[in-house]
């Protein structure tokens, strides 16, 4: 448990790319073990927010505090912060020249300095838990999209992160493969993992999230429990967005 009781606090975060302001003052808190889903149209800033939390992108203004430590301070060691925050990308980004096992053990061995035997034993345990035990020796391009994404999730989990960021992890998958990846995320939520999830899967967000945040043009317009947001959204923009989603048959 961190000093302030929050796994993540985002305070007034702004992010500009050149003259384009993508995040226009985001405030967001996650309690430990909480699962928060970010919904909103493409380009609303969901991915950028996740990348700022992971320090992949420096924020232009504002603070991000993880477990009581301000990670946006210029004095922190970004490499150390990233070890504790797992991120999974839409495009998997597995290392194609390494087997699944090598993908998963790379960071534990090189960053945490674990022995090969120890890292592999832990990796195999995680792979087995997510149904990939028989794929440990395969190269990523021999795996289905769903298997690749599960392997990417395992790779992030191998660092024992305190917080997981999922960036539209099912968007690049064939529809019939989405289920297996959502199943993995569901299991993570049940095991108490704190997660911030950007997603287009509204029914999944409704099922898994403790809280849903609707992002629009770089601000959180509305947030609340999923039943509230999905059943009776207060903001007209949220209503419009959900109407379009329903029309597209995704809810």
């Amino acid at each position, binding site marked *: 448990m961190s000093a302030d009781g929050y796994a993540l606090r985002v305070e007034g975060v702004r992010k500009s790319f050149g003259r384009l302001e993508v995040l226009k003052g985001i405030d967001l808190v996650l309690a430990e073990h909480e699962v928060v889903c970010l919904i909103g149209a493409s380009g609303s800033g969901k991915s950028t927010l996740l990348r700022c939390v992971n320090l992949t992108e420096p924020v232009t203004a504002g603070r991000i505090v993880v477990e009581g430590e301000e990670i946006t301070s210029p004095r922190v060691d970004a*490499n150390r912060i990233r070890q504790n925050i797992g991120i999974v990308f839409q495009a998997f*980004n597995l*290392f*194609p020249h390494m087997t699944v096992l090598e993908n998963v053990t790379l960071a534990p061995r090189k*960053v945490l300095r674990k022995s090969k035997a120890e890292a592999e034993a832990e990796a195999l345990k995680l792979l087995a838990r997510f149904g990939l035990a028989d794929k440990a020796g395969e190269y990523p391009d021999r795996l289905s999209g769903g298997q690749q994404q599960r392997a990417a999730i395992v790779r*992030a989990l191998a660092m024992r992160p305190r917080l997981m960021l999922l960036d539209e992890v099912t968007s690049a998958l064939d529809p019939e493969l989405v289920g297996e990846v959502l199943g993995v995320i569901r299991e993570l939520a049940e095991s108490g993992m704190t997660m911030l999830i950007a997603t287009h899967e509204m029914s999944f967000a409704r099922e898994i999230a403790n809280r849903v945040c609707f992002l629009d043009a770089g601000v959180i317009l509305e947030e609340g429990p999923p039943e509230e947001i999905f059943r009776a959204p207060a903001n007209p923009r949220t209503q419009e967005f959900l109407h379009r989603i329903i029309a597209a048959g995704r809810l």
Partner: protein
Amino acid sequence: MRASGASGARSVLIALASTVVFAVVVVLAVSNAPGWPAVKRQFFNREFFVESLEVIPEAFLLNIRIFLIAEVFILVLALVIAIFRSLPGPVFFPLRALAIAYADFFRGVPTILVIYLLGFGAPGLEISGIPRGALFWGVVALVLVYAAYVSEVYRAGIESVHPSQEAAARSLGLSRAQALRFVILPQAVRRVLPPLLNDFIGLQKDTALVALLGPVEAFRQSQIEVSSNFNYTPYLLTALLFVLLTIPLARLTDWLIARERGRRLAAGVAA
């Protein structure tokens, strides 16, 4: 693509027949040329060929040594330059500028000039502690020139790896150097192996340029043989030796290119 059965045998026969016809035409054209008897005496003399077999292959060992030693240093130096050039941020501007100036300069100046300038200039500095041998400076010149070319090959490889790979590595807590070493470079080098080997072949041939400074390698030895017998056959032997050394490397390059293409196609089908 591999043809099978009867059509395979048929294409082998066609290839064989057309090769024989081509060879016969070339041989007839050359041997019926008016000057052929003189050329045959001067370039294809069996007696002098056998005689030079006793000295030239031995001298050729020096070419191989120059090649092997230079190659090791080229691979390391070129990698350092390529990494300098790919460093981001304003802090590293001097290193980037240095790398660019280096590659521009040594790719621009003719190899033969670099060899002359270093071979005759550097020993003249009389700095204590650095060797003054012609062979040493010849190898240094080859290393400097080829490292410039090879660094560009490396750089192309590094830039061909998608930035999301580095992002994934960094997100796991790997430092920039670790991401480069374990994630980016292994993929980059795999992709540029064929052009890398191509530069090796160029280097094999350019080892003969070291002769300009005095060391007696195969080319220099064949010059000595030629001028003492007034017969050019030793040049032919030297050329043969270079070709024999090049062929395995050239086939290896072809094979690697074919394998890479096969892998990409297989991946394309799977996707």
